[in-house]
């Protein structure tokens, strides 16, 4: 508890609750070969929200997330983070972190040194980056494997290291691209619970991408449903279930009503 509170307190600049962090306005993306991945995608993410984009495989939802991160350029419309283009926001605010589909750990670095990497890249002093990395790893429950190498870890543990790496940078906005897709169902639902706990502690705003409707509803305060390619947002489903969410909620009637609403929107288009 103590560790995570420190992480939140260490942040330099925080958006106010309800302030708009991400704006996508009429975003379109076409590739050089003529494939249209996205068409007229508009949405907003406010501070403190957990927004999930759910859609079928290949609908362009990962592409959309990469555009928000500034890892690609839009063909139409615009994306802004706190009013800035993503690449500038990334450079000037240092308050965005990306968790990729695979854990993207560097195999030649120990767990600890992997979590230290982003801090090392932004030239944080060695003592401080060590302390912050240790704290982040404590928050995800991985203090026993600091000196292990990634190949010695299970898939779920690797993903937790990846989340710790994001945590260590004390981001305001966390972008997650199907982070649990490669894990078994049991590990996935356990990490879902753990992610919600960390998000609440760290005060993250999250934009999450998945094709799993249950995961989307369990995690989010709002679900955006995307259509098949070219991807558009065809429905927006608010999830009015209070946080903190008990794992048992997944069998409740309210939960399953929302799940079937999202599923209906998915199959409608």
């Amino acid at each position: 508890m103590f560790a995570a509170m420190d992480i939140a307190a260490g942040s330099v600049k925080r958006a106010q609750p309800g302030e708009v962090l991400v704006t996508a306005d009429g975003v379109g993306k076409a590739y050089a070969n003529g494939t249209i991945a996205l068409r007229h995608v508009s949405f907003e993410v406010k501070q403190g929200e957990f927004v999930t984009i759910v859609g079928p495989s290949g609908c362009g939802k990962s592409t959309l997330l990469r555009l928000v991160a500034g890892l690609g350029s839009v063909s139409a419309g615009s994306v802004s983070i706190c009013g800035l283009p993503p690449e500038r926001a990334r450079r000037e605010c240092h308050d965005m972190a990306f968790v990729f589909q695979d854990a993207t750990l560097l195999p030649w670095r120990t767990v600890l040194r992997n979590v230290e990497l982003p801090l090392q890249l932004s030239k944080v002093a060695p003592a401080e980056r060590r302390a912050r990395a240790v704290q982040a790893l404590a928050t995800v429950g991985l203090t026993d494997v600091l000196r292990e190498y990634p190949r010695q870890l299970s898939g779920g543990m690797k993903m937790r290291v990846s989340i710790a790496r994001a945590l260590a940078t004390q981001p305001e906005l966390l972008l997650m691209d199907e982070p649990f897709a490669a894990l078994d169902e049991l590990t996935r639902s356990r990490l879902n619970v753990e992610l919600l706990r960390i998000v609440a502690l760290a005060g993250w705003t999250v934009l999450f991408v998945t094709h799993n409707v249950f995961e989307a509803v369990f995690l989010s305060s709002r679900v955006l449903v995307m259509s098949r390619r070219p991807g558009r947002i065809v429905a927006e489903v608010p999830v009015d279930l209070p946080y903190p969410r008990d794992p048992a909620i997944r069998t409740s009637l309210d939960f399953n009503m929302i799940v079937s609403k999202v599923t209906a929107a998915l199959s409608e288009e």
Partner: protein
Amino acid sequence: MRSPKREVRYGRGNASDEGDPVLSWEEDQPDTSLVPAQSRVRTMLENVLPPVAGLAVLIGAWIAVIRWQHTSPLIAPSPGDVVNGFRDNAGDLLTAVWSTFQDAALGLALSIVVGVLLAVVMSQSKLLERAIYPYSSLAQTVPIFAIAPLIGTIVGNSQLPVGHLPIVLVSFIIAVFPIIANSILGLTSVDPSHRNLFKMYNASRLQELLFLRVPFAVPYILTGVRVSSGLAIIGAIVGEVYLGNGGPQDGGLGYETWTAGTQGQWGLLGASALSAGLLGVGVFIALGALNTVVLRRWHESALRPES
């Protein structure tokens, strides 16, 4: 360097309260005490016996051919002649091996420095790669006996301290290409998702090079070095033949082999050729061990197979 001995206990977050066990890895280490001693002996025999048997068959066949054909020692040496060649010239051969080893080691070291630097430069710019890469392969395809005398005259007439330098340069020219080729491959085949990670954290080009590309390329570079180690020895020997100053001290194995060949001392010829071969194998094994030491923590190539 931080001391790996220093053990600090950190307080746990409340993640473990979720009942999520944090695995202890000691339990997963292979426990050799469970492997019966008999099977360990067996594994050793399986490793040692085949190469020994292979060598015995080879030498047996060699002896048989010489005996059955009643080949004169003036035409071809028997294994005995080669052994005698070793015995009668042990001092000279040792001096020659040492001299060749030094030339080849310097040639290889120069190849590593220049090869990796060139590869780094090429990895940073496609245009530079196109400008340099095609010509770097010239280094290994141009007949070295065309260049060796040139190197001799150029270095000999320059202000450089000559010594073994021309020999080292010949060794370098032959050895550098595999290092360039392997380093380029390693530096440019970094996983795109890792590149995105670095981009996400606003890494500079230099940081991407130092923290991502170079560490990723290390196994490739080491493979290049192992391939080049044999070439460096061949290069040194060829260089010694053309540019050595005579005697095992300055002419190394090149001189020994050349004089033995021109004087028809087949036993000595075989012994010096074998010395070169053994030197190559020794260097190859040593580099293999280096490979394992450097990569054992993380790279598949250096991990023990799990049984």
